[in-house]
């Protein structure tokens, strides 16, 4: 995740933004409307498209909104029977879920051995469904962190068979200023403003997922029952509010205004450069899945942890052990089960990446101890991770490794130790004994008995 700069956040709590009613008359919201128009124009420039809807409040809503404009486009051409959505096997799980909600039939396109879209399979399926083809949903660069060279050919194939191309903007941070969704041949994309354009994750939201479209889809951009938005053949609303989560648009607005075109382009370059730096250093210790033609990754890379299963170590153990080093695990088991996907972004300095790399290398050494039989398969520092202060300071210590090793595995950890507040949480137990409201602890213990 990238920097959420303080200056981008400061205006969020200004009354000029906070105290405006969703349906306040337009003559009272000129500041908002000017900001919105500017931001829309900037997003058009960045994506190469001609229309924007800021309504969708998340990436998944953006997917749905984009697919609904595609649906309306086909219907407007008496092609309402075009309902097949091709989705690569590597796609994010929201893609097929959104397609089904938009009334589409999902057809999965295979990946080749390198994790890329199997172009032959795509061509075969596009041809097979040419009378019913609605669209392709594609993430670019791919969820595997690779700029697939075949993307233009892929988009042309879809267009030649009567379909449109939806580009999932999850990886837009590797495109801004260097290429664009319109440039690769897509017709519509969503942008995760909370990924690429600095809206903080908020602990799991808010996000925003505006869509950008070309002239074919612009007339169908979503309308709204109270405030006029969207195109002249607008589909119905995608969100309750006409401009989605309007008050946090300032964050992305400030980011673009303060970076300028060159700064944004440099951010993309630095995101890719940082990822390649981590990749080079980790490649000496871990297997890196999927790289491009020249051995480079895009803005993220996948670290394969499946080999460690032989020693009984799961990717989850690595994720939990990272906590003892003061790190939050990167993406676990997506898009490939048993892997970590690391996306450092442009905002991490070398020193921070070095600490993270050293932590992973040291964890690799800990795994090796298990592999070589120097540490027990179950009773080891990985399986018991994370270690809480209560566990480390308990009067009784019976583990075969030292407390120092458990809590302070590297020198830098001592400088600023973050203590997890609980030991590893049992997911299956919680699902079998579902409790979703606050209970006094004594009652909880009774329920357990």
């Amino acid at each position: 995740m990238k920097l959420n700069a303080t200056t981008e956040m400061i205006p969020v709590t200004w009354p000029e933004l906070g105290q405006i009613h969703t349906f306040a008359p337009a003559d009272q919201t000129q500041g908002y409307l000017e900001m919105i128009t500017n931001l829309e124009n900037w997003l058009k420039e960045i994506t190469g498209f001609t229309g924007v809807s800021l309504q969708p409040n998340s990436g998944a809503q953006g997917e749905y909104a984009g697919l609904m404009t595609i649906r309306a486009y086909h219907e407007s051409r008496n092609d309402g029977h075009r309902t097949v959505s091709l989705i690569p096997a590597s796609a994010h799980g929201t893609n097929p879920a959104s397609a089904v909600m938009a009334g589409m039939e999902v057809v999965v396109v295979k990946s080749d051995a390198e994790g890329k879209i199997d172009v032959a399979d795509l061509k075969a399926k596009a041809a097979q469904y040419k009378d019913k083809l609605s669209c392709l949903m594609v993430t670019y660069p791919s969820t595997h962190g690779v700029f697939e060279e075949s993307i233009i050919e892929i988009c042309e194939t879809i267009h030649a068979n009567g379909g449109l191309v939806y580009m999932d903007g999850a990886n837009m941070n590797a495109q801004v200023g260097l290429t664009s969704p319109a440039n690769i041949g897509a017709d519509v994309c969503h942008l995760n403003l909370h990924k690429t354009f600095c809206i903080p994750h908020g602990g799991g939201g808010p996000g925003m997922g505006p869509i950008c479209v070309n002239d074919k889809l612009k007339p169908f951009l979503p309308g709204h029952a109270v405030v006029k938005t969207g195109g002249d053949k607008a589909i119905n609303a995608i969100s309750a509010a006409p401009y989605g989560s309007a008050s946090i648009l300032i964050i992305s607005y400030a980011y673009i205004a303060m970076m300028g075109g060159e700064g944004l382009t440099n951010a993309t370059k630095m995101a890719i450069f940082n990822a390649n730096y981590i990749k080079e250093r980790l490649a000496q210790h871990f297997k890196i899945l999927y790289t491009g033609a020249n051995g480079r990754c895009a803005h993220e890379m996948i670290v394969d942890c499946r080999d460690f299963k032989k020693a009984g170590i799961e990717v989850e153990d690595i994720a939990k052990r990272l906590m003892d080093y003061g790190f939050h695990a990167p993406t676990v088991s997506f898009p490939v089960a048993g892997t970590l996907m690391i996306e450092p972004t442009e905002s991490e300095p070398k020193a921070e990446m070095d600490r993270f790399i050293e932590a992973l290398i040291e964890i690799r050494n800990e795994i090796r101890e298990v592999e070589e039989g120097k540490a027990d398969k179950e009773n080891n520092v990985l399986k018991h991770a994370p270690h809480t202060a209560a566990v480390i300071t308990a009067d009784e210590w019976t583990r075969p490794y030292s407390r120092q090793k458990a809590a302070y595995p590297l020198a830098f950890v001592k400088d600023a130790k973050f203590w997890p507040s609980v030991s590893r949480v049992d997911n299956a137990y919680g699902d079998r004994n579902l409790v979703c409201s606050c209970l006094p602890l004594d009652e909880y213990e009774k329920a357990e008995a």
Partner: protein
Amino acid sequence: MSYINPSYSEKFESRHNAPDQKQIEEMLKVVKAKSVDEVIDQTIPAGIRLKKKLNLPAAQSEYEFLNSFKKLISKNKIYKSYIGTGYYNCITPGVILRNILENPGWYTAYTPYQAEIAQGRMEALINYQTMVIDLTGMQIANASLLDEATAAAEAMHLLYASRKANKKNANTLFVDENTFPQVIDLLKTRSEPIGVKLQVGNLDKLDITNLDLFAVYLQNPDNNGAVKDYTTFIESAHEKEVFVVMGVDLMSLVQIKSPGEMGADVVVGNSQRFGVPMGFGGPHAAFFATKDEFKRQIPGRIIGVSIDASGNPGYRMALQTREQHIRREKATSNICTAQVLLSVMASMYAVYHGPEGLKKIAGRIHGLAQLLENSLAKLGVKQVNAHYFDTLKLAVADKNSIKQKAEAAGINFRYFNDNHIGISIDETTSVADINTILSVFGSATADGKPETVKLPGSLIRTSPFLTHPVFSTHHSEHEMLRYIKKLENKDLSMVHSMI
């Protein structure tokens, strides 16, 4: 070199893009390249590179930006809003504003996938779920959905997938016409592609025996502000195996019989007025509450309690197997991002005020609405809602002249298409504000002292809510401050290290 340069302006870019030239040079050795551009050329196929540079305005420094943006955004005019329609003025307690909304320790955290370092916000989210369960009178709630309208659509999805045996082929969702327009609009979007037939109409004229009917959506208080007891209606619907969804207002439930007690199957709404600024539409956290029987079909994220390896309670996201990253096209919904920060704020608002504080806030809102109604009656203005919580609907002769006067006084009412005006009272309204409103309609001054809840006995809430000690403990600012900080300290966020 000389540092003397009158046109020097600090570049934000060098704060955002972290590695400086020295770091870049060291990294270049590792990646075995001569320049960053060389790495880029090796990464992105030449055929898809942009031919020209982005055409965007010149970069501003942070200082320049804040100054220029202040000017731009000052074009917004902050009028006192009585528009309602699902969005209300509210007071964000200072302790919540500064220590949550303005605090990177809260706002830079990631989705709580790594439970052991996310216990703080998950405790706040459990509080949110508890607050929603208590106020709605339902059995289970999620945390959270994107907005009230999409929550309504998710209710439709859930109930459509859960149709009873002899309703397997029923496709009609009836939506009471007195539902917020933005909710009806969104239900139109979401129903058609999945084969649900939407029928919008007058609830009193609904034929509940219609075999094609699988669910009814209604709102209480409704689009006009009217409050009704739907217990009998819901019973009759259930007899015909028709589900009922209710859109509700959380604050009103402090005073009104809960939808759970009325028998609703799913309850949705917006928690915005629990301390989250309106913000011209969002973000706010919507809620979704239902009966136990639907717990494995609930859309979005649910926080649950489990145990940790030391045998202590630990929170984590429950029932993850429902979600799309596992179930893909068979998932219960496509929801991924929730509204965690805003749910945390709303839950903290409930923690801060507690049940007694909320009763005082809701009581004042309802009292001021009565005061306004009584005073308007003396001016001969007719109010049409038989029962209401905070919203009056006025029948007027000339809506436009009132609009002119209101805007001159810096206030916004809701103007219906016919000659009706809606006025929603909220937490920020004072007696002085009521006088200002009255001045628009005439020159009266508010008088009378409403002291009781003006609702029929059967509609008045009697069941307790927010009975858990967490809602009765943190009412002094010190306790609240320390509770917020205690939870924050359990969570690892970007203030600690890279994620």
